[in-house]
């Protein structure tokens, strides 16, 4: 299988502290690749560089064989990379449906009827409604986003990532702050879409990671110290050391 995303020797530091320190990473088409690591390992910094929100100091990122290292965030999104946010990042003063519709609209192509009220464009609204149905928010479409619970917001993030039609989804701790029931619901859902999308998952919930991931990379102090299947990672001495040494 070819690598959809290739990262080579990626470096980024803040005020002398290296947050990303020569990361090499391949995410293969169709796999669910998880990144784990202790707090402060630089996981979110890595995601922001992949999505384009921050520019790396050095190194290369290739997506589908094209260099995207210096590409602005919005063109990466157009090229097929989307991300969800660790801290819920939605347009709170719009309705749930509007939020997802904006994601659908982003890759809907241009229309000459650009003055037509957006809320009257049936195919966009319908597609958005479908995605919300899929993540189980079918009955909340018209609610103001600000009124939804934290768990529902996490699901919205997933719906938006899916609706944006991206080939590669960068999910930053989708389980953060969820209760056991909600976490289980999220795991079930991710299992369901596994294989249809390439997913790079950052997650603290180890049970979820080992249940979901095809491959796992371990990030410690801005470096990848191991990559492999869940079983390989479980057996890896370095990983055990890194984790046990920490806790």
């Amino acid at each position, binding site marked *: 299988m070819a690598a959809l995303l290739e990262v080579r020797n990626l470096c980024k530091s803040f005020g002398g502290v290296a947050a990303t320190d020569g990361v090499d990473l391949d995410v293969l088409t169709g796999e669910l690749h998880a990144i784990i690591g202790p707090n402060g390992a630089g996981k979110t910094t890595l995601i922001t560089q992949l*999505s*384009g*929100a921050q520019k790396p100091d050095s190194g290369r990122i290739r997506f589908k064989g094209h260099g995207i290292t210096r590409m*602005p*965030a*919005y*063109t990466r*999104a*157009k090229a097929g990379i*989307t*991300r969800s*946010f660790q801290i819920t*990042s*939605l*347009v*709170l*003063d*719009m309705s749930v449906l*509007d*939020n997802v*519709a*904006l*994601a659908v*609209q*982003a*890759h809907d192509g241009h*229309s000459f009827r*650009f*003055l*037509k*009220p*957006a*809320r*009257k*464009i049936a195919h966009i609204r319908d597609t958005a409604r479908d995605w919300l149905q899929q993540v189980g928010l079918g009955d909340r479409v018209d609610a*103001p986003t600000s009124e939804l619970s934290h768990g529902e917001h996490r699901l919205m993030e997933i719906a*938006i990532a899916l609706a*944006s039609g991206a080939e590669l989804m960068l999910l930053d701790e989708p389980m953060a702050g969820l209760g056991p029931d909600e976490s289980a619901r999220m795991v079930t859902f991710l299992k369901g879409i596994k294989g249809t999308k390439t997913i790079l998952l950052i997650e603290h919930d180890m049970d979820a990671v080992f249940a979901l991931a095809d491959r796992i990379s371990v990030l410690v102090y801005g470096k990848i110290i191991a990559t492999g299947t869940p079983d390989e990672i479980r057996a890896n001495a370095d990983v055990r050391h890194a984790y046990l040494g920490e806790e």
Partner: protein
Amino acid sequence: MIGFGKSSWVTLAIMAILLVLPMVFYWNGNTFYLSLATRLTILAIAAVSLNLVLGYGGLISFGHAAYIGFGAYAVGIPTYHVFYGGAEGIATTNGLFQFGVAVGISALFALITGAISLRTKGVYFIMITMAFAQMAYYMFLSIEEYGGDDGLVIEVRSKLPLVDLDNPMELFVLSYVSLVVAMLMVRTIIHSRFGMVLQGAKGNNERMVTLGYNSYLYRLVAFTISGAMCGFAGALMGNFSSFISPEMMAWSRSGELMFMVILGGTATTLGPVLGSAVFIVVEEFMSSYTVYWHLPFGLMLIGIVLFVRGGLMGLLVGKGR
């Protein structure tokens, strides 16, 4: 939003009052209230244009008074040359030309300054828009030929087909119709897909970028449209007051425009109109009683910020969102 909610009825009712009341006064022989209404209507257009970026786009422009100046000078300067010679290429009283220039120059200024300003955010954006407006202010201050500090008297009003701007009633009706068109334009824009992205970027810009929207470009377009509309209001203002001075472009005027929008209620169709109406009427009313009217006026402004969330529209129709 679609169909007739309470806010739509309030909008219709207030717009009807704004149309009929000045006319009644006029036919009763009181021209003053018609001119008050005309000034109010023109400022309302400016406020509506500001609301597009400020209310819906979350871009706090502290320099919109500059566009009123551009618009007014676009009327004043060609007329000046008709009377005092020079610059034959632009010497004309043709209103279509003048209004065209007003809109064109304003759009251009908004495009250029917007391109730079939109790189910044927050208070930096507030202050850089003000800085550009101050530059325009000082520029007109320095052009001796057009009066500099003293301002420029516009000897004759724009000549337009169908309407005679020297007739106060026709000037009022033109301003009123322009206001309605401006309101409808903004409404159409914000409900379009473009407008959804603009509002999305106000709520969460990073999300819009992550979805693949070049929100910088969306904002720049909105900023340019807003500037152009405000320039149009300026051309009307020049015709209304027959006088322009750089003072009309000073930062405090931009502040007043902001106030009108907030007072009425940001991100609402009627809010800016209501805000300018109340602002102008209260100002007129208070200032005719005492030269110390800034005191109660200032207290009123503070009170509104502190106690009235969502502006007057919030009071009238309840918090819509």
